[in-house]
């Protein structure tokens, strides 16, 4: 196991294509994805760029490494470096590199030292001694461990101390002390030679990664350090801590103890009241949580909710969270997109107060409207000015030139006339060129940038025009817009970035009508963010019947947005969101009259030039009663609509449970993907409960990537299908073919999605890697341009819960969950690859 892990890491580091070997151990995948996530992006990109694109390629020079063989490897490298330098002695080559590094620093003294180094290096070469740049002492060469990622060498004691200090400060992005290349964890392990510290390092890495995962929920019990990765649990928000002896139940949305029959807000208020009664002075943090408005100086990071303090004194508002690394604007607390500061939205680098929504919209609309007027004015003035001005100017110049000269008047006038004529001819050309260039640029800005940012920030419900893509991110909870809802049902709403649909009670109004999904206008899929507000933990279920909606939905639109109109039938509560709900594929199995899961799609569309396969993850929950259903998930690879494949369930489940579907996702770099195919993993046990599976599909076209997640998508309308063979059957292949949603995915960020992973932050016997038996791990790794074949393993998450909620099991990957509980809920995740077309 160890070797394989090393192997993977090594391969990764060498920039070789990593094959998703079906037999690979989860641990290695985890490690790999972890490392990829945490490892240097630069490494990745450089390795990606160096990887040759034919995607599925076995690593050419696989070097199996075992710890023992490391020493052998050292020699290999040495030889290599020698060869590189044309036969120069290895030591000298290292030295010369080192001294080169010194000279790069452009300082007088560094040249001095480098020359010193040069001198000493020669002498050292003889004695085989190198000066360590950290302690400035000489050591023999064997005290300098080889580092995979760069050529810098420091003595092992200094390195060890360095690593020790960094890890103790929980800084896990440890880079070389001389350059910015991150260390390979393997190197770290070797250098440290300290298991305790190494475990700490790994734990911090894991924790940091978890914090960045938007689905991760920490158990609120006082002594419990476990986390639950609740992929797709927005609709059945009751989570159970997996630690034995804990078993705390808590709410997905507000992350507090489970509050049945209450909304998150109500529960919070109740808690606050009881707290106030009990103590005179509550903590300021809980108050600020209650009020929802943090004190001006303390705000939670939009991604990981770590509190950040900044003095609001006009200093730069572009923040980078120290915990999860997310960049956001301090004023509006949204993650930075490329357009954030471009459009007039009130968030400047030094602003102190964000503009109110009204002001923002006013400004932006004003720009939109006023721009053509302004542009016309400018053009109208500039053109005549240039056409007249240039000849005049030229004439004058010539006149002046001839002032002093002793030339006959006739000649002079001739010259002037000639000059003026020429410029009269030339100037319109010049004017036209100027206007022809300037005006489109201004128009592009006004009508491109401003509407995008307008719509991204939730200004309107209209689908915007040209855009490269919409980045939808998890928003912080402050951004909940309860109001703008009713667009969902009959209107197609735009998938907007950072939309935070709150599941409001009653906002469902719009959703009640069942949109007959006949794909009439489904050309857009509104994506709703996953971040459902606390308002309805129990309410958070809106039934979305996705009956035929998907059929029409997958229209490729030129805006890289998918909007699907969903049939939403609300049983109890409804999902309200500003953007349309996307429900892809109905999972409903049997109709239960209980809560329905709303569908929420999260789409991430990193603005990526090379579109690769995109995935839309749709979570479908169907109400169960006693069955588990599996929604079909289709992974789209290349574009053609495919049918979703029912996943099989794991063994051990009583009634047709979880079906595992394995997605293999191919990253197609820049290609148009043709059809999505569902691939089953060979070692997946797939129980075909065919009737239960639904297939969704999306065609993929590569350009931009977007990835949708629909945490809960369920349709359990009686009308839809009461039987197990629900809508899935409706979505036949043909239907799917008609759906041409395509999104391209080329995200450079790696997402490893884990469903319900119970993690032990404390070092305990089971580590994540070693005990997959307990958890359902779904690993979804997406690679960007690197031609890799990531695998999606999804394992349905289990909610230990009474059978009110729908459960759809979807199993992926080799770890299968043994669920024997009838009432366990499982969310099914559909991974649908969608590609949007530009």
């Amino acid at each position, binding site marked *: 196991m160890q070797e394989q892990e090393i192997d993977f890491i090594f391969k990764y580091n060498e920039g070789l294509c990593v094959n998703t070997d079906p037999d690979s151990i989860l641990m290695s995948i985890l490690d790999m994805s972890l490392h990829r996530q945490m490892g240097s992006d630069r490494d990745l990109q450089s390795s990606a760029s160096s990887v040759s694109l034919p995607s599925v390629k076995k690593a050419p020079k696989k070097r199996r490494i075992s710890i023992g063989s490391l020493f052998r490897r050292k020699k290999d490298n040495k030889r290599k470096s020698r060869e590189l330098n044309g036969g120069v002695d290895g030591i000298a080559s290292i030295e010369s590199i080192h001294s080169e590094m010194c000279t790069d*620093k452009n*300082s*007088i*003294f*560094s040249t*001095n*030292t480098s020359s010193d180094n040069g001198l000493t290096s020669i002498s050292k070469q003889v004695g085989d001694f190198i000066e360590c*740049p*950290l*302690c*400035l*002492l000489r050591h023999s060469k064997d005290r300098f461990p080889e580092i995979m990622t760069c050529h*810098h060498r*420091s003595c092992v*004691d*200094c390195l060890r*101390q*360095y690593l020790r*200090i*960094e890890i103790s400060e929980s800084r896990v992005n440890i880079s070389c*002390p*001389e*350059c910015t290349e991150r260390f390979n964890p393997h190197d770290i392990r070797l250098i440290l030679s300290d298991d305790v510290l190494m475990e700490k390092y790994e734990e911090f890495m894991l924790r940091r990664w978890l914090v960045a995962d938007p689905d991760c929920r920490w158990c609120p019990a006082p002594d419990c350090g476990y986390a639950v990765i609740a992929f797709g649990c927005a609709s059945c928000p009751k989570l159970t801590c997996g630690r034995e002896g804990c078993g705390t139940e808590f709410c997905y949305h507000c992350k507090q103890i489970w509050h049945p029959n209450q909304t998150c807000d109500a529960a919070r208020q109740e808690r606050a009241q009881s707290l106030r009664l009990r103590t005179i002075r509550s903590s300021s943090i809980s108050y600020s949580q209650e009020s929802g408005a943090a004190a001006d100086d303390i705000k939670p990071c939009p991604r990981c909710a770590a509190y950040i303090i900044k003095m609001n*004194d*006009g200093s730069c508002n572009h923040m980078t969270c120290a915990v999860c690394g997310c960049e956001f604007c301090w004023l509006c607390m949204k993650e930075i997109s490329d357009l954030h500061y471009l459009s007039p939205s009130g968030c400047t680098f030094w602003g102190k107060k964000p503009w109110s929504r009204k002001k923002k919209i006013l400004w932006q609309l004003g720009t939109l409207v006023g721009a053509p007027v302004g542009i016309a004015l400018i053009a109208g003035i500039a053109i005549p000015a240039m056409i007249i001005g240039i000849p005049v100017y030229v004439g004058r110049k010539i006149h002046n030139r001839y002032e002093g000269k002793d030339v006959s008047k006739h000649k002079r006038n001739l010259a002037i006339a000639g000059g003026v004529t020429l410029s009269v001819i030339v100037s319109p050309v010049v004017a036209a060129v100027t206007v022809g260039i300037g005006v489109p640029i201004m128009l592009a800005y006004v009508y491109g940038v401003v509407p995008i940012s307008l719509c991204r920030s939730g200004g309107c419900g209209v689908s915007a025009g040209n855009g490269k893509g919409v980045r939808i991110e998890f928003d912080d909870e402050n951004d909940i817009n309860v109001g703008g809802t009713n667009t969902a049902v009959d209107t197609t709403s735009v998938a907007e970035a950072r939309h935070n649909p709150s599941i409001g009670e009653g906002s469902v109004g719009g959703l009640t009508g069942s949109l007959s999904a006949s794909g009439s206008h489904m050309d857009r899929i509104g994506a709703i963010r996953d971040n459902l507000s606390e308002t309805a933990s129990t309410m958070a279920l809106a039934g979305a019947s996705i009956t035929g909606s998907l059929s029409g939905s997958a229209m490729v639109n030129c805006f890289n947005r998918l909007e699907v109109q969903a049939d939403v039938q609300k049983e109890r509560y409804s999902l309200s969101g500003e953007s349309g709900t996307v429900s892809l594929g109905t999972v409903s199995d049997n109709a239960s009259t209980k809560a329905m899961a709303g569908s929420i799609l999260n789409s991430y569309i990193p603005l990526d030039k090379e579109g690769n396969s995109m995935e839309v993850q749709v979570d479908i929950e169907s109400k169960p009663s006693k069955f588990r259903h599996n929604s079909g998930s289709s992974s789209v690879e290349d574009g053609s609509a495919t049918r979703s494949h029912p996943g099989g369930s794991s063994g051990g489940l009583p009634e047709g449970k979880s079906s595992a579907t394995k997605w293999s996702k191919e990253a197609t770099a820049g290609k148009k993907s043709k059809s999505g195919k569902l691939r089953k993993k060979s070692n997946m046990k797939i129980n075909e409960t065919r009737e239960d599976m639904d297939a969704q599909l999306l065609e993929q076209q590569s350009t931009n990537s977007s990835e949708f997640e629909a945490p809960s998508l369920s349709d359990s309308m009686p009308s839809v299908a009461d039987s197990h063979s629900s809508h899935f059957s409706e979505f036949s292949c043909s239907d799917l073919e008609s759906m041409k949603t395509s999104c391209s995915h080329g995200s450079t960020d790696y997402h490893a999605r884990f469903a319900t992973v119970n993690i032990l932050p404390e070092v305990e016997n089971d580590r994540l890697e070693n005990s997959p038996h307990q958890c359902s791990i779904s690993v979804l790794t997406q690679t960007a341009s690197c031609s890799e074949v990531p695998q999606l393993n999804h394992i349905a998450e289990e909610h230990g819960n009474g059978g009110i909620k729908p459960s759809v099991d979807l199993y992926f990957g080799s770890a299968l969950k043994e669920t024997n509980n009838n009432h366990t809920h499982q969310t099914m995740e559909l991974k649908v690859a969608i590609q949007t077309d530009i």
Partner: protein
Amino acid sequence: MTASKRVAKELEELQKALPKYLRNLCSEDSVLQWRALLLPERPPYNLKAFSLCVSFPREYPFLPPTVKFTTRIYHPSVDRDGRVCLPIISKENWKASTKACRVLEALNMLVNQLELGQPVRLELAEQLTQDPELFHQTAQEFTLQFGVDRPS
């Protein structure tokens, strides 16, 4: 401790080849605390000298040294207590292989070139951008008033 050894070594190297903008470089009771005199070359600071204190933490070189002005200086990146915001020694940018000579050089550049990278005193930064003349004048007066006399 490797910190002291390295600091001592660096001190020795520097003292052997002192740059022209530095004088009187020496260590105090502990080798981890240095004192020096900074002689900027450009106006408005070029008429006087400023005394500095460089202090190295025990975990040096893994943690950055801190630089403090013990003479008052009218500069947007130096606060009233003499603390300097120097990017090269900020926690995020610090590299263990950076040497003290490099740090002093960066400090000299900061003082001479009056870059507005990370202003600590915003009112001075504003003044510099809006009314450089006035800024230079005030700075000069301030320097003459509080600066330390230059050695020969």
